[in-house]
């Protein structure tokens, strides 16, 4: 006897916004009929915070563990009473409105190192003690609805001017020791970026005494966990994209172009308990492994 349980969502991309109705079907495929003691469907959403091992010593004084913050928990019974499922494929449609718990906001789905925001649907089929219960989990994604008043976006939309920058040994933090003589000019279209649009800009190597090996764009997340008592701030790399390979031609503009990865980014989020922020580093690596980094904090929004 084999039973498979599946949750199929109506939307192919599985992306929902607050107040949407999550709809889909439960699919039970069995080759012989079986008894059950009730079927329930649970929709959950939570923020999981994890403390970096580096900081665990400090934090431990205050908390042993950081509790997950539950944003959403709805349970509904598909059938309360025990019953039978006939052999063959049984489709049970469902519809659940996506509403946060009181006093909570539905943040966007995000998978980070120390902060995870995830949403899922879970279906349980209870059965008698002789046979195992069946369970199936299905993740779905939450995104802010652009223009909706309820989304917790930051009021940073006015800062849309291009940001230009210039790099040379003079304006290095280290004072330019060890760096060859070079001049790098460029601009970013904006540092307040729409998450669904690529990150764009352009840079030009005006002059350079030593050959360049690589020019890279590093996308970094800065996650802060904690509360008023103390916090842990961790910056980790999401991705590193090469935009210039080898000894690039001088005085020819190079396109800065990066697509924000889907799961690992979300609109910049600042709450009392945690923060998710992003930064972009422009990294120039010279042939002699000398490395120059220019950091740009960026703000991601969904529009």
């Amino acid at each position: 006897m084999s039973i498979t349980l599946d949750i199929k969502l109506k939307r192919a991309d599985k992306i929902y916004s607050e107040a949407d109705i999550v709809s889909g079907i439960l699919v039970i495929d069995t080759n012989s009929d079986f008894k059950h003691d009730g079927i329930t469907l649970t929709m959950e959403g939570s923020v999981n915070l994890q403390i970096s091992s580096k900081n665990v010593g400090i934090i431990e004084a205050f908390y042993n563990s950081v509790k997950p913050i539950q944003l959403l928990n709805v349970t509904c019974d598909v059938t309360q009473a025990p019953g039978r499922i006939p052999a063959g494929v049984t489709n049970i449609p469902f519809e659940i409105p996506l509403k946060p718990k009181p006093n909570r906001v539905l943040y966007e789905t995000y998978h980070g190192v120390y902060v995870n925001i995830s949403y899922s649907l879970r279906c349980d089929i209870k059965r008698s003690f002789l046979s195992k219960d069946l369970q199936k989990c299905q993740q779905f994604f939450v995104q802010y609805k652009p223009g909706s008043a309820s989304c917790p976006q930051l009021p940073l939309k006015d800062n849309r001017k291009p940001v230009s920058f210039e790099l040379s040994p003079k304006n290095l933090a280290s004072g330019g020791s060890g760096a060859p003589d070079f001049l790098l000019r460029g601009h970013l279209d904006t540092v307040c970026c729409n998450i669904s649009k690529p990150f764009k800009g352009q840079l030009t190597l005006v002059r350079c005494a030593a050959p360049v090996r690589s020019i890279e764009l590093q996308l970094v997340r800065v996650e802060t966990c904690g509360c008023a008592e103390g916090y842990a701030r961790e910056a980790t790399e999401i991705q590193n994209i090469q935009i210039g390979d080898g000894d690039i031609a001088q005085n020819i503009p190079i396109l800065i172009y990066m697509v924000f990865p889907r799961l690992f980014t979300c609109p910049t989020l600042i709450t009392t308990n945690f923060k998710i922020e992003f930064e972009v580093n422009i990294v120039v690596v010279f042939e002699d492994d000398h490395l120059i980094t220019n950091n740009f904090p960026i703000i991601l929004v969904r529009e």
Partner: protein
Amino acid sequence: MSSDLISWKTLNVNTKIKTSFSEAVQEHPLKNIVVTERIPRRILGSTPSTGRTTPVSTPSNISEPLANALKQLDPLTEFAMHEEMDPLSKIAAEMDLTDSCIRTVNEGNKKKDEKLFNKTDLWSYRRAAILQKYTTSEKLTMVISYLIEGEKVVVKAQSTAVDKVQHRLEQLDSFEEGSQRKLNLSQTEYISQIEELNKELIMVWNNEQRVKALKIAIQCAKMLTDTDVLIFYPSKFVLVTDILDCFGKLVYDRLRIKAEYYKPGSKVPTALPEDFTPDMVPSTAKETCLNWFYKIASIRELVPRLYIEMALLRSYYFISSSDCTEALFRLTKMIQGIGNPVVAVYARCYLCRVGLNVTIKDSNLTYLRENFDSFLESYQHIFRSVKGQLHKEKMSLSTYMTLYAPALDFIMETVTLHSPESTLNEILANCKRYSNSSLILNTIMSGFKPAYVSERCLQFLSMIGQCTDDGIPLSALLRTLGLCVSVSPPLKEHRAQILNSVYLNMNLLKNPSEYITCFEVWIQFVAKYFSTKEVDSLLGDFLYRMIKNEEQITYSVELQNIMDKIITNISDIESFLVMDHFFAVMDLFEDKSRLIEVSKVILCKYNATVHQTDDPVVTNVLMYLASNLHDSINMLTPEDEKRQISQILCKTIRIVNYGLDFDLQLDLYVEARHAFCILDTVIAELVKCVNNLAVSVRQVVKGYHTRKTADFVRACAAYCFITIPSINCTRTRLKLYLFSGQIALYNSCLGQADACFKAILSTISELPCSTDTDLFLPAFVRQFLSLLMVVPDNPERGVLSLIKSLLNTIRNFKWQTSSSVLGFFYVHVIDLLSVMAQEVYPYHVDKVESNDSLWGSDPKFIDEINNMIAVVIGEILFLLQDLGPCQKQYQIAMELFVRFAVRADLRVKELNGLALKLWNLCIKSNYPDIKYMATTKTYLKNKSLTCDNEELQRLAEKMSLLQK
């Protein structure tokens, strides 16, 4: 003569009173032959006569495993494919590449519309040329992390248990990521490794391991970052992009097929049609496609990311119709991030190639131009960045520059195909801004329409002169320009100036091989548009260079090309042959086979253009060329080649005509006989020519030979008589003897004619016994017999000695088939003899007295003839007996009967009786042609009435048509 011979008496036709008896026929003799059932005839032209059945292989990306297995080459082909090319074909491939570029562009005008939709063609011929040209013997490195498991299992299948465990462990290791191995491979191994990767990719894809497939594709694209062995890079590019194309197609096809599309009004999901629009694509397919693009956007390294995106460009159509074009422009900009100029230019090449394949009609094609301009902008960068690497690889800058050519030419070609003339002007102006760089100049010249280039030939020449960098060598630039000029003529008023300028430039070339490659192209231009004088002086210059050249390199190939080009383009071939440097240039050929080829080409061209010449100098050159050809023949020469050469020589011999200078003409023939003694056909031709000459002489003197002309025609006859025996073929000899004999007779050279006829008699016995001979000989003998009638008897050898010896020869000849042929022969002899018994022969040779006037119907002579006829009839009767009742017997008997009825004097009772017997034999035979016999009877009856021949009339009455 035995006593049972019948006594024959020939009927003497009274020519004075004879009114020619003729009878209207009811049926045309040929009417029976009309074929009622027509057999469909195969037209020769419809079948390929070359027998080339090898299909042209086209690169195809097949994803099915079965087809993939089929794709595997047999070891031989594989070897042939990987075999390093010899330098010659390499050069040829290189030339083809440049030449065909020009050609395509030229055709491009006409076929522009066609071209637009046949874009892959543009690339495919380049592809092969690149693979041929850019090869290496150095070791190549390849970093691989996905080894081919299947292969390893096969290799180690027979090893010991310990090995097996180890092998299993290794295999497990290799599955882990990051276990990269750096391999040192030869070119062949490298290619097969790439091939393996391709197979692996398809296999993995079919096993639903998409991520792994993507990883392999990335791995491949990564190889293009590495320019370790520069000279191999273009080939590597071709191989790798093939895999990428395949990958792109796999992704696209799968997305298309997996996308469940509901046709309007239909409930059954089907795959998307080929020409779908984005709004037809279901959201699941869009999602999958987006995932692909998110995935590739996160590829860390620039070059693989660009290449993979380019490979997948087509899939953008699942998302929206504008994304693809946007991506093309974005990628164009992003390529600027590639530091290595070679890598960058090939990436651009791939972009243009893929771009052409994915863009639909009316889409924006300016990215092509943008790619070219971007290259121009970064041009100076090339020189800054590569010095170090070139030094390391010991490569010269000019060789390095040629690496750019295939990619750049392709980009240029796409630009020119899709843009108006004005764009070209802009590009040219742009090029000037970048200080007339040689590489770009070269690309422009090979990429633009030749007509455009040659119109501005002078401008280009001055730009070439101003070239500041040392990229593409001067010779290559001149060569490219020369190719353009030879395809499309420059303005008339500029031509002289162009020639001067090119001449000056060519003098700057120090290296003889550079000089010769330039010369090769430009001589075509000179030959086409200038007189032989210029060609001659250029060749003189060329000779001076070649003789001065101390290096012991021979340039036979180039020399041959040069000659070929001159010959095809020159208008006045005769003056070319007699120019000062002709022989000196021919002497330069060290490779005899090429000399022969060139001689052949010259002669062919000469034969085709000139119809007659009387210039002894030209003739001398022709004889030299012809003997070159003739001397090339040896035991191993194929028949066909011999035939071809013979034809050329015959044609040439016929062209030389000194008109009334007969002596000179005969001298030429004597010389030719000496020079071309091997070729039967040529010798035969010479004999015919000499006979022809003899006839012309006779025509000039109108038959009245002076002593001098008589001597001359005798010399001609002697020439024929001594030339003929050297011919191998017996039949040809026979025919020529007969022909020469006729001509000798015509010229009243009786002795010579007689000699010829005697030669015929002795030659007949040399004929081989075969069915062919049985067909040939009777026809030949009939011809001979009709000639013999007018040949006067040789007083030294008695009456009719020639005919008697002929009779003996034929009788003793070993016939292949039955003796029936002999029977017919005898019948014809009867014909001849009975005509010879007439008082006046029906035809004569002018100025030759035949037997009729020699003997004046002397009774002895007539008796002799009658006796001979009697003997012959005896032979025939004997033959008939020998044959027994059969169709042949009937035929011979019937023929004989007709002779009796027409030729014999039927008043002799014996003859009359015999005739009737023959008739009865015929009618009783098993195979009588009653219709024919009835017609014969009617004919004879009518004839007897007209001629007042009572005997014949009686005979006709007695002839019964009743069978048994």
